[in-house]
């Protein structure tokens, strides 16, 4: 497994081009559809700067930042999922299943108790708290589940469930101890909540997603070698420990960024990379970059449904992803029971 052959490079380019097109179409669709009825030509007029007023606020200040947040969160969660799956060599590993999302969410709630919110500096603080929570949760799961020679599937999943429950309970404790009024909206936020993220926060979100994405995508080739087993990877010149640390840090950072700015949205990291693997095969050099775009497109479509299905009320986008994700999870669990090599 050296550099990809020219043919597979061309294939990757076509694939990423296709997914990029899907993202653009989904984004345009989301820009035109919403519970405020803004006629298409008014949306165009807003985009060309010819209309001001409420329509401009709806399109540029509400829909556009929300579309960008959905693309970033979806991409981040999907790449994090692909990273965790490669790291654990387990197709069910995913930020929410592993409890890493809950850890990050705990960090965010702590930050909110201390009053961190929307300004640029505060956004960095919020993400830092989320990252700390994600690292602690991920580290705890690893320590609980690891045996000599690897991470047994069931132990890993159970460890993830337990750590997830621990942090969810810790959030409940915080909500009960702190003045309920200050955290009243947290209950909705915990279901995953995309909103109009402030420009400063969006910039922080984008920077963190780029950094985390680089950490994971840049190690995709070595992650392929790790799939052969740690010893084989060592023999092929891979610093297995260093690689695992890099992937872990990257996936935790991506999870933290998504949770800090969009809430703990589940199952994106499971559905997207696994669907891509079923379609494209297991090569991480293809799957992980594709997950960045595919995850964004998936979450954006899910959020467009969440925004419009019971308008003018709204659903939490996490509800939609969970409805898609649970059957998928069951399928993977059954398929794996039938064929352990999947």
């Amino acid at each position, binding site marked *: 497994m050296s550099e990809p052959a020219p043919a597979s490079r061309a294939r990757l380019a076509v694939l990423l081009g296709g997914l990029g097109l899907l993202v653009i179409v989904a984004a345009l669709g989301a820009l035109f559809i919403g519970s405020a009825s803004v006629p298409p030509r008014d949306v165009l007029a807003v985009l060309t700067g010819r209309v001001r007023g409420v329509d401009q606020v709806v399109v540029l200040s509400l829909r556009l930042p929300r579309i960008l947040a959905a693309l970033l969160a979806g991409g981040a969660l999907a790449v994090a999922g692909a990273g965790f799956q490669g790291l654990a060599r387990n197709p069910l590993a995913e930020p929410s299943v592993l409890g890493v999302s809950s850890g990050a969410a705990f960090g965010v709630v702590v930050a909110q108790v201390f009053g961190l919110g929307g300004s640029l500096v505060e956004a960095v603080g919020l993400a830092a708290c989320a990252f700390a929570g994600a690292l602690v949760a991920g580290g705890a799961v690893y320590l609980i589940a690891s045996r000599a020679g690897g991470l047994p599937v069931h132990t890993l999943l159970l460890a993830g469930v337990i750590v997830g429950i621990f942090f969810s309970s810790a959030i409940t404790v915080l909500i009960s101890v702190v003045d309920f009024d200050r955290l009243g909206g947290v209950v909705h936020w915990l279901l995953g909540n995309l909103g109009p993220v402030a420009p400063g926060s969006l910039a922080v979100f984008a920077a963190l997603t780029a950094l985390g994405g680089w950490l994971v995508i840049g190690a995709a080739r070595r992650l392929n070698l790790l799939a052969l087993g740690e010893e084989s990877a060592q023999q092929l010149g891979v610093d297995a420990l260093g690689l695992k640390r890099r992937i872990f840090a990257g996936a935790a950072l991506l999870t933290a960024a998504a949770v800090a700015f969009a809430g703990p949205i589940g199952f994106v990291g499971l559905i997207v990379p696994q669907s891509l693997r079923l379609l494209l095969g297991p090569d991480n050099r293809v799957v992980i970059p594709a997950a960045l775009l595919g995850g964004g497109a998936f979450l954006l479509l899910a959020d467009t449904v969440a925004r419009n299905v019971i308008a*003018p009320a709204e659903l939490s986008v996490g509800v939609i992803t969970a409805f898609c994700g649970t059957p998928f999870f069951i399928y993977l669990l059954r398929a794996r029971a039938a064929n352990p090599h999947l």
Partner: protein
Amino acid sequence: VRRLVVTLALGLTLLPAAAGALSVTDQTGRQLVLPAVPARIISLVPSVTEVLYSIGAQDRLVGVTDFCDYPAAARRKPRVGGMLAPSLEGMVSLKPDLVVATTAGNRHETFEQLERLKIPVYVVNPVSVADVLDLLVRLGRLTERTEAADRAVAALRERIHAVTVRIEGRARPRVLYVLWPDPLIVPGRGSLVSELITLAGGESVTADGGQGYPRYSLEAALARNPEVIVLASHGSEQSPLVRAQWERFSQVPAIAAGRLHTIDGNLTHRYGPRIVDGLERLARLIHPEAFDRAQTR
């Protein structure tokens, strides 16, 4: 055994009074029989605590929740914990002869546990302004403060009427009321806040939303062109930040016109006598012109 003796002795001394046992119907229509006029009441509801103070029945109040913060004196009463999980032990040790609880904010399990302990529970479920006034009258009768309660209700009615007179015949501005900004939670159909906005001479743009206090689409709310936006503050320092986030939408007429306001949510969300303060403030925010030259209350 000793407790049994004490209970028996107590029962015996109360026997004569039992003839004059009190049968009351609570606000949900449940019948309860009390041995006598309650003298040791625990309030599990901040608004009920406020009602008891407003009718001068605070001497009968022996326990409150952590959230009972008004009037200031209520903070000095013994506390039994939060609304969702008050301490049963804490309540029992205060030896209450009545617990007042609400269907909105307390759990049904709490009522059942108290009733198994033979502590009568008076359940309130106010939804409207009329229910709040009704609650004052009921609790007044229950605590032998009938006259004080009637006076308080008459005064509140008069103030409500004064607002009605002020806003009469004026066009109703469209009002967006924000209970919680992110995700956006607003007053919907049949909620107290929707009623207060109507009474204050406004028209809530979210009154067609779900029952009670639903989540609502921000763009749908703004697309209805609210002329006044009212942000509920929740007693913390968060409001300046939330305000700044709304000020970003400077193209929205209400914000361009400087009609983005903040109101203390404790005045408008609690089913207590202070809803009339909330009503008066809302009316001033919605119809400043109606209060401009007139002398204040």
